[in-house]
């Protein structure tokens, strides 16, 4: 583990940050909140062609940028800071990553380059209503005979209403647990597919419910063998999400700090009140700790650490708590103004809340940590350590 970014990585971060600052100010975000697509195609094209971000998560052979998990985390963190709207998380991080980890080379060749170029977008249909966020809870059912037919319901499919291709996590009929988990590709226009937009709590994250009624599907990879590949892909997505979250938390922290230094009450800035100072110190601690957890997880991911389940869940649990704390404190310290629609705080508040429960909430990930304790944590160390 390096515990620092290289100069190249820092330069890459600043380039991405400047791009988002120019292209994705909150004025643009606000317009996109009411837009059905939810992002600006021209900006997405530039993100893809000029910066290569659409392929950030993919290897060169499939048109990707040959970036590592750390660079992907940097991009995600900057997305979280700016709330830049794009299909990046849904298509590049979630869907393309799952395809890459599960599908055959031929299918990767067929699907990924267009996604890596940003010419097409994909959505991952994973979450199901009233189910816990684990693969074993999947109920969407696939019957594989001459062809593969898919039935079931998904919800909260990010950018699901406008994707060119839908990738669905399903299970073979009659299977349970990890066994039988299969990734399939579905044409959104196929017979039996009903996509309906769901009103999101966070209007910067577009969601759709998708119902599949005996829909023709194309299996990616071996039927029933997708679980371990998906788990690796989802760990990486969790780390990207955690990075996005600590980016948002940092931004809220900085904006709030700046506001306390400007806002006067009782003839002095509210930053001069000791109670505010102490809370800002505690908030900084919480955000910086979550940041370290996300950075470590990204490095662990890049190093293919065998305990990635543990570190990814640790990062998500830390990010969930820190982001919600930052969001709550940001509204509170902005006072009445912080509760208005016109102030920007609520944009991140809503992102914090939706991120908190996306891909499993903090308590679910804490439980997952305990189920995946690394040996150096679960065993007594030789001698007494401090």
């Amino acid at each position, binding site marked *: 583990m390096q515990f620092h970014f290289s100069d190249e990585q820092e330069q890459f971060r600043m380039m991405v940050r400047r791009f988002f600052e120019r292209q994705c100010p909150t004025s643009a975000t606000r317009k996109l909140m009411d837009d059905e697509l939810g992002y600006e195609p021209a900006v997405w094209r530039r993100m893809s062609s000029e910066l290569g971000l659409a392929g950030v998560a993919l290897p060169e052979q499939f048109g990707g940028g040959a970036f590592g998990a750390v660079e992907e985390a940097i991009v995600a963190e900057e997305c979280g800071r700016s709330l830049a709207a794009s299909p990046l998380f849904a298509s590049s991080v979630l869907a393309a990553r799952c395809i890459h980890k599960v599908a055959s080379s031929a299918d990767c060749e067929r699907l990924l380059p267009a996604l890596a170029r940003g010419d097409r977008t994909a959505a991952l249909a994973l979450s199901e*209503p009233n189910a816990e966020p684990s693969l074993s809870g999947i109920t969407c059912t696939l019957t594989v005979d001459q062809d593969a037919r898919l039935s079931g319901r998904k919800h909260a499919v990010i950018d699901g209403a406008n994707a060119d291709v839908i990738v669905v996590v399903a299970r073979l009929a009659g299977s349970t647990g990890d066994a039988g988990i299969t990734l399939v590709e579905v044409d959104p226009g196929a017979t039996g597919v009903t996509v309906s937009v769901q009103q999101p709590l966070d209007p910067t994250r577009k969601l759709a419910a998708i119902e599949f009624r005996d829909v023709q599907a194309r299996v990616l990879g071996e039927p029933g063998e997708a679980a371990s590949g998906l788990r690796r892909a989802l760990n990486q997505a969790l780390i990207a999400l955690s990075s996005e979250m600590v980016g948002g938390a940092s931004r809220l922290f900085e904006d709030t700090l700046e506001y306390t230094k400007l806002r006067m*009450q009782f003839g002095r800035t509210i930053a001069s009140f000791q109670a505010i100072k102490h809370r800002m110190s505690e908030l900084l601690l919480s955000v910086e700790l979550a940041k370290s957890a996300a950075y470590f997880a990204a490095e662990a991911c890049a190093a293919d650490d065998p305990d990635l389940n543990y570190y990814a869940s640790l990062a998500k649990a830390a990010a969930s708590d820190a982001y919600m704390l930052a969001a709550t404190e940001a509204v509170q310290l902005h*006072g009445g103004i912080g*509760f208005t*629609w016109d102030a920007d705080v609520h944009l991140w508040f809503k992102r914090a809340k939706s991120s908190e*429960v*996306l891909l499993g*909430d903090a*308590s679910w990930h804490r439980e997952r940590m305990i189920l995946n304790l690394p040996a150096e944590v679960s065993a007594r160390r030789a001698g007494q350590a401090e």
Partner: protein
Amino acid sequence: MTQESSASLSDIAAQAGAWLDGNWDPELGLVEWRNKLVDSGWGMPEWPAQWYGRDFGAAEVRTVEQEFARRGVVGVARAGIRLLAAATLLEHGSEEQKQQFLRRILTGEDTWCQLFSEPGSGSDLAGSTTRAERDGDHWSVNGQKVWTTSAQHAHWGLLVARTDWEVPKHKGLSYFIIDMKQNGIDVQPLKQMNGHASFNQVFLTNALVRSEHLVGAVGDGWKVAMTTLSHERRRADGVRSGYADIGLQVEKSGRIFDEERDELATVMEPYSWYPQRAGRVDLAAPRAIESGRIEEPAVRQELARLLTMSASAEWTARRARAAQRLGKAQGPEGSLGKLAASHVARQASRVHTLIAGSDALFAGPQSVEDGIIAEILLSTPAVSIAGGTDEIQRNIIAERVLGMPKEARVDGGPFRDVPRNPTN
């Protein structure tokens, strides 16, 4: 008549009952009936006898209210801030002001709004920078107010404005009644993060106040405003429940009830999300059970924390009310309600999130509980801000209840020299 009066409570119940027997008619017009109530003294018996009341004490008032409730009789207008206006006028208003306003407050013909808060002075009311200047027979007012509920249909506003910039901040304010229906006033709805627009911004541009609508003397604004706010606080403490427990048992049909329902619908509309703001603790256990999430140990722990906090906050409030009822010195428990409510709301939001799981991603009528859960998650942050932030509450508790030293003031000099937020 005072609480020590010889008239027993049962005599009072009998008298009120007799008058109602002779006068109550659900087919009367709402204003017509309330004028009768006003003239009789039964509509607001805690008010002075010379102003539509009977000088009744708390026990006697409760007796009258119970008599009204038992019969399902419509009372005088109480909703909104009109009674805060009335209480302020009863204490500080001139004879002419009482004459002009009190009756129409009770009949509901006039609605009121409160022009206190400003964008630059939220927690710091005495830092108001809205300016009132004498202009012949009038005052001319310029500035901006905010968080004004019902400003869009109010007839009259309670206005705090600065009339002297050369004296310390608390001493340069005056208190006015302003006619809201005039060109100098522009009311703009203020949308909140939960999508509701319960409040308004009010822009005052050479808005006029008649000389005789100054309440108290010039420079008395802070003192008069404290009267308004103390009544607001008392109401917030739930000592007076207003409509809440009146007339639930009786079938209500008749013209007067239709008119009352219309009135209430208008006045109460801004408050539709207030139960969600408080966290809807009532929904927590039922939702956990119905969703099956109560099987989740983390849900059980956090739900139990919420129920513990919420019940003990409620019991603490009842301890305060019991002490007040018995005329005992109130302990610290009376000052804690607002802060406790913030904790309850925050924990409720956590629990509702835990129960909802990925359903917390959705909002709107198609989402869980018809959107109620999403509204909770986006409304609870207001509890710790509105009506005095948690920070102000903690200051008040520390300084007034615990006797800890006050913050050193840096804004004691002439207001002109006090650093403040820029106004636009």
